[in-house]
């Protein structure tokens, strides 16, 4: 545009060359993108992605409203799972409060399609009835879902997820403690165990990891 007429011919030729080279580079890049899968996400140290994701077998549990909670309810959206029990006053409320902060942070992300559900699965089904979970879990966030069931049904799920739990008998039969895995699990929209996050929990880091995992998952579908 700013060239004098004297140089217009040279300038035009150069421009054509540049366009041709740019087109070539662009084409190669595009072809590369089509042929090569995107690079696997680089996650924080406390998040582990399972490769491949672990396929889960059917299980029959119940949520805090009394509705059936099965594998089907893990499909079609991402789910965060935490395991604990309502008679746990320290680590369980602490983690549920952390999950609430995480849920609020993730809710502000630009992609509403990846809004996950948050599940608190009891490892103390003896005491944790749906009614008790209904008074406990939504307290931390009204969208959180409590899940319980028979001891064998809970074991059916926890074994598949490599979640450990152990009742510690005490002299007061109604006042026992339960040791349990502290990890947070992430289930993908196919209902497969996709990743796990270990404490100490940092909600900013977890949000970034969640974004990377979901973006990568979408990209390779």
């Amino acid at each position: 545009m700013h060239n004098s007429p004297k140089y217009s011919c040279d300038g035009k030729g150069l421009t054509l060359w540049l366009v041709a080279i740019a087109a070539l580079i662009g084409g190669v890049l595009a072809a590369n993108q089509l042929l090569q899968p995107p690079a696997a996400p680089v996650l924080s140290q406390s998040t582990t992605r399972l490769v491949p994701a672990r396929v889960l077998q059917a299980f029959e549990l119940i949520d805090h409203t009394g509705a059936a909670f099965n594998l089907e309810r893990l499909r079609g959206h991402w789910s965060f799972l935490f395991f604990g029990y309502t008679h746990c006053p320290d680590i369980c409320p602490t983690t549920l409060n952390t999950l609430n902060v995480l849920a609020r942070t993730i809710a502000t992300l630009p992609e509403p399609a990846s809004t996950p559900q948050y599940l608190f699965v009891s490892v103390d089904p003896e005491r944790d009835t749906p009614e008790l979970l209904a008074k406990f879990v939504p307290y931390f966030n009204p969208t959180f879902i409590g899940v319980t069931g028979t001891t064998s049904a809970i074991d059916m799920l926890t074994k598949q997820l490599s979640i450990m739990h152990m009742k510690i008998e005490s002299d007061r039969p109604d006042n026992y403690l339960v040791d349990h895995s502290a990890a947070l699990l992430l289930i993908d929209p196919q209902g497969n165990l996709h990743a796990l996050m270990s404490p100490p929990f940092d909600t900013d880091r977890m949000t970034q990891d969640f974004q990377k995992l979901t973006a990568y998952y979408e990209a390779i579908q």
Partner: protein
Amino acid sequence: MKIGSLSAFALFCSVWAATAQADALTVSGAWVREGPPTTQVLAGYAQIANPGTQDITIVGARSPQFDTVEIHRTEIVEGMARMIAQPELVIPAGGSVSLEPGGLHLMLIQAQNPLASGDHVEIQLQLNNGTQLRVDAEVRPDPDAGAGMDHSHHHH
């Protein structure tokens, strides 16, 4: 008992008051995490300092508002979270011990009445020197619950 000279500090912390007798422990920032209204088991936290020159051991705890009070430590070992009862807790001379979420806590078992934010819990710590330290802890939501999470409607 009078709060006395501690009142200025209590203003800052707004959630505690402790009366020391012959002992040298000072307790600050004592609070009990509010739980869902039906919760029978709560956790209490505080900073316990020992400005004296001798170690002081807490050998027991109780509260008129709970059946049992135990000192616990939450530990995560090989991915497993467990609570381990601590029969005693040494507060070293010139040092302090912090009871905080995910670590040491007072396990308040079987509340006689439901407790909500703003209520106070009286906790008596039994010390190895034969004295008792009375701690007043206010019930309040977890600070992690953050702004925008208003728990007040849960119990009104």
